[in-house]
């Protein structure tokens, strides 16, 4: 389809703003923009049509099954959006005096408390805007902790090689050196390797548990103890919390600091890549370092404190992705203690149901029970037919379901990582199972056909190499405007 710039080539005017009701002030010439601005007002009719056309070219959770492993694409309840659209939340200025935003401060404070209990942490900051931002913030806390104690030689963060790429990237960004350690074939931490890696230079250790194979690390207590004994802190990557709400808590496993992805576990919509929210929780030893501002209770009311004695400071402007917090709070209050546990239980149940019903067809490297997600390997299939995980993913597109996470974790070759989440019914899973079985059969029978997938999507496979080699990352008006 055409770009918006190709659809409207002249400014068709706007009727949005009123005429001036005070004398006009003229900007001095020296400050004036001289460069032509290619930005033509599009008639509302055409805006509506352009974005309808774009929306039809997006597949969201509302379009169907979306089992992206470790991304927890659960259903996004509409009541959350309705609450986040209340004028009492959308129309308040972030610099309003505390007395006029008691509701907003309550949202923050209550959410902090609820997340603390759910994860076994002592306090939270809701400032970080996304998971990686949370990691970065959490690592800054670890740094501040060691610095405060004068333990300046702790410059290294240990990361298993099965970790999400953001872990080492965030650690590096926070000024740490990254030490990679290998994993076992189950994706568990190699305890011996960890023992060797820790030392007086260890600032901390980062882990996702259950791991990206959907397995809960059986040595978790030993692992966190090794790090603690070496003087380091344990960081929990909350990406996979959806498996264990109300069942086990990172805080009880020996983790000192962690982040959550509200846009995963707590059902806030991903928005095609944001806004997310990545709250950071920590144990008492770290709370004094949490970023500003902090919501505090002052008698009967809340205040916003910028007091920064030990704080790592500010990690973004204002007060976090507030409307995302409203959505998450609505969700947590709706589900409550019983509902959160039921969600995790059904997430794990659905994953096991799906795995069980696929395992006769597909190779599932690890036998059950899995947690909320599991991995299948298409390595054999590829050897036999030449059909890769990518080909299979593309073929799935033609069935109108979203493919799983591909080629991750790296320790399983030609991996598909499936996370059905709790919000799929058995009826939906059965439908998916039959699609996967049919697909497998087709891959065996007619591999070329699969390799030519997708066929029903609005575009065929894009040339990513071309995109990266000769980058075109904006529209060129010079070529098309007279």
């Amino acid at each position, binding site marked *: *389809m055409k770009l918006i710039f190709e659809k409207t080539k002249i400014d068709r005017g*706007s009727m*949005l*703003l009123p005429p001036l009701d*005070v004398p006009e*002030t003229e*900007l001095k010439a020296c400050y*004036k*923009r001289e460069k032509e601005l290619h*930005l033509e007002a599009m008639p509302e009719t055409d*805006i509506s049509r*352009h974005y309808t056309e774009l929306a039809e*070219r*997006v597949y*969201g959770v509302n379009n169907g099954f979306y089992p992206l492993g470790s*991304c927890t694409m659960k259903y*996004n309840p509409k009541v959350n959006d309705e*609450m986040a659209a209340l*004028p009492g*939340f*959308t*129309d*308040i*200025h972030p*610099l*309003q005096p505390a007395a006029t935003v008691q509701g907003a401060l309550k949202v923050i404070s209550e959410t902090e408390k609820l997340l603390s209990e759910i994860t076994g942490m002592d306090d939270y900051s809701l400032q970080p805007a996304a998971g*990686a931002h949370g990691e970065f913030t959490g690592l800054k806390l670890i740094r501040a902790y060691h610095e405060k104690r004068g333990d300046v030689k702790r410059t290294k963060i240990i990361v298993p090689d099965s970790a999400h*790429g953001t872990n080492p990237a*965030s650690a*590096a960004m926070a000024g740490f050196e990254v030490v990679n350690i290998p994993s076992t074939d189950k994706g568990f931490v190699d305890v011996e390797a960890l023992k060797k890696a820790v030392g007086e230079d260890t600032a901390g250790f980062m882990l996702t548990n259950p791991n990206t194979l959907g397995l809960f690390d*059986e040595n978790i207590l030993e692992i966190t103890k090794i790090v603690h004994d070496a003087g380091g802190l344990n960081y929990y990557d909350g990406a996979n919390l959806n498996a264990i709400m*109300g069942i*086990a808590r990172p805080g009880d496993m020996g983790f000192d600091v962690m982040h959550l992805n509200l846009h995963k576990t707590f059902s806030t919509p991903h*928005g*095609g*890549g944001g*806004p997310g929210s990545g709250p950071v929780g920590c144990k008492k030893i770290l709370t004094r370092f949490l970023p500003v501002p902090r919501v505090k209770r002052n008698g009967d009311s809340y205040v916003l404190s910028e007091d920064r004695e030990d704080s790592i400071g500010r*990690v*973004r*402007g204002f007060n976090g992705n*507030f*409307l995302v917090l409203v959505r998450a709070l*609505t969700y*947590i209050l*709706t*589900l*409550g*203690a019983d509902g*959160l546990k039921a969600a995790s239980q059904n997430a794990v*149940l659905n994953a096991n149901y799906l795995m069980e019903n696929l395992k006769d067809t597909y190779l599932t490297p690890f036998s059950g*029970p899995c947690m909320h997600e599991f991995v299948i390997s298409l390595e054999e299939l590829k050897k036999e037919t030449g059909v890769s995980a990518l080909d299979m*993913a593309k073929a799935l*597109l033609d069935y109108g379901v979203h493919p799983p996470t591909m080629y991750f974790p790296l320790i399983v070759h030609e991996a598909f990582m499936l996370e059905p989440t*709790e*919000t799929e019914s058995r009826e939906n899973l059965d439908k998916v199972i039959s699609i996967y079985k049919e697909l497998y059969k087709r891959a065996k029978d007619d591999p070329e056909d699969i390799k030519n997938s997708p066929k029903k999507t609005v575009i065929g496979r*894009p040339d*990513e190499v071309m*995109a*990266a080699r000769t*980058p075109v990352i904006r529209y060129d008006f010079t070529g098309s405007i007279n």
Partner: protein
Amino acid sequence: MGTYVPNTKTEQEEILKSLGYTGMEDLFVTIPKEVLLGRALDIPDGISELQVKKKLSKIAGENKVFSSLFRGCGAYRHYIPSIVKQVASKEEFMTAYTPYQAEISQGTLQAIFEFQTMICELTGLDVANASVYDGCSAAAEAVIMCRERKRNRVLLSGAMNPQIIETVKTYLHGTGAEIFVVPAKEGVTDKQALQQMLDDKTACFLVQQPNFYGILEDYEELGKITKESGARYVMSCNPILLGMLKTPGEYGADIAVGEGQPLGLSLSYGGPYLGFMTATSELMRKLPGRIAGQTKDARGETAYVLTLQAREQHIRREKASSSICSNEALCALTASVYLSAMGKKGLKQAATLSMSKAHYLAAKLCSLPRFKMAFEGDFVHEFTTVYEGNTDKLLDELEKYGILGGLPLQGTDTGKIIWCTTEMNSKEEMDELIDRIKEVQLHEADI
């Protein structure tokens, strides 16, 4: 209990049975016993949708929405066209993940490509990314882009919004960078100080347009001084005003960043907002975050993909330029719709309305006793006054009338108030503000 679990109890039991389990606890046998919670979470049990809606509505009611608002300082109440909210609430845009599967994400990808183009147009620079968390983190990411092995000093204008300065400091703490604030003088960056602080170790200098106090600085000269030292010149800009103001591109900036919130996003107590980042083509491969690019598909048709991923964390891991992977895609979409609805004329109209009202209000305020302008510099839609009276009391009184006045500054700036106007402030509103201030002053005089 509220729940979005579709399976009934019966179905769950059937599934468990089919898996050979007798109860839910069987699914969690791999978790060491010592780690199991073994009790219910100590939070309230769930409630129905009806109840939660009542509860949240009550909390929302505990916030005061000001119909008359004269505060900016990083968050601006501009008019949001109805079409903007309507488009941004389309379920597909809302509920999709990051567009990894390009074939079924062309809508998101094309929208980002269009957003990148519009931001380039606004700033007059060559390339843009898909957005970052907000304006402050955009500034911090820009600084990181500029650092080179031999250039490790970062200079920040002291006339920038303190939140930007603080965020940059947090981001760079512990990375070995040296951060210095170039002092402000008369409400603008002290050029002489800047000249002295720049050296061949300096990575970049950051300045804000207009600055924290609302003033337009001499960006031409600041840029010239900076670039003469070999450092990068980075500007943090208000995107609506860029429809009217000379662009970072025209001022020779290497990077321009800013807070995109004014482009159709509601105030929302500070988020979600939108950080935008643009740069010269030379810096393209240093840009952090997602970037959408145009290419061809297997059928030879135009297609869009996430590109230049070699910069990113999932490929580069600890060698990535940044760990950022989420952008604020839905906010970027919102900004695109806003810009399409306004167009260049509408944008200029918004800027002109905002500016003219600010000058009207400044003149009115300064005609009152005890009020005067804090600085002499040229301003657009924000300006700073000095009030020789009790600013806190003054603003408290205004609040009682449903008016949120300007932002009172603290510390050495006590007594200063930064005011802001947009097209949302009518003349009547401003006249009422003046009348109310007169009343307060009269009343104070009485005592």
